[in-house]
């Protein structure tokens, strides 16, 4: 199990953060991601592998200001 934005989620396949975000329809250019309390640099999304017990915070930005 993985915790994503406070909700427990089954991680069905072993995948990278990049693949997970794409599978969840996140636009990579409009988000910020924290994994286990640390910000994840965008350049490393495809190298970071997700595992059970991970806690993800994903913030999606919408336009306007």
């Amino acid at each position, binding site marked *: 199990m993985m915790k994503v934005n406070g909700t427990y989620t089954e991680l069905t396949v072993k995948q990278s953060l990049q693949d997970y975000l794409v599978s969840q329809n996140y*636009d990579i250019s*409009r988000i*910020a991601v*924290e994994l286990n309390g640390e*910000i994840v640099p965008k350049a490393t999304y495809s190298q970071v592998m997700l595992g059970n017990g991970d806690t993800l915070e994903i913030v999606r930005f919408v*336009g306007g200001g």
Partner: protein
Amino acid sequence: MIIALNGKRTNVKFRTAFEVRRELGNKTDIVILNGFQIDTDCELSENDTLAVIPKGCMPDRDELESMMMARHTPNVHNKLKEGRVAIAGLGGLGSNIAVMLARIGVGHLFLVDFDMVEPSNLNRQSYYISHLGMEKTAALKVQLKEINPFITVETRTVRVTEDNVCELFGDYSIICEAFDKPEAKSMLVNTVLERLPGSKIVAASGMAGYESSNIIKTVRRMKGFYLCGDFENGAGIGQGLMAPRVQICAGHQANMILRLLLGIEDI
């Protein structure tokens, strides 16, 4: 008894605030005791801060500062005067946030925007017809000087990119994200969190349209990352940005910045 009277340490022989007014001013003067305007007389205590302000006349510069400070909560004012805040983007959020921070007396503001004031800004941003065609940095600086001449305002007219974030904002422990485009918001928040771990960023997402005011809130999403907005209602075709919700969101950001300046990290 020693009190601070209109900004000057003064030895007074009066017992109450209104006795001071009766002696030094006239009946229509406003009386502010320790940051609060009083309508009924109050006894004075040692070290009170008292301002007696005549209505409708222009005081000299020293007096003006003490009169403006009179409405600030005494201990809060000194902390804010030492405060330094950077604002990235001077649109509907940033221009209004800058005005609020100037009004509460934040001592140093650093304002960054690459753009000029144009007519479509006037529906929600703190600019006037007379500012059309001016750089936003310059137009805002003029206003802030009229609101509070006792703070320093530094500006840079430049587009913020991944490559200049550290150079621009590296010296600031509180950075306000006030961009319009979601990609720019994401870029600044990511870059600050990655490369400026000592800084806190107060960002915004979701304030378009005329949905309920009450769904706009402040949350702390990550370490050093505060986010204000309803997180859903983006600006787009058919849903414009309107002054009320943009200013509500700007108010959330400004109040979170105020709290951080006072050492309060809770939302």
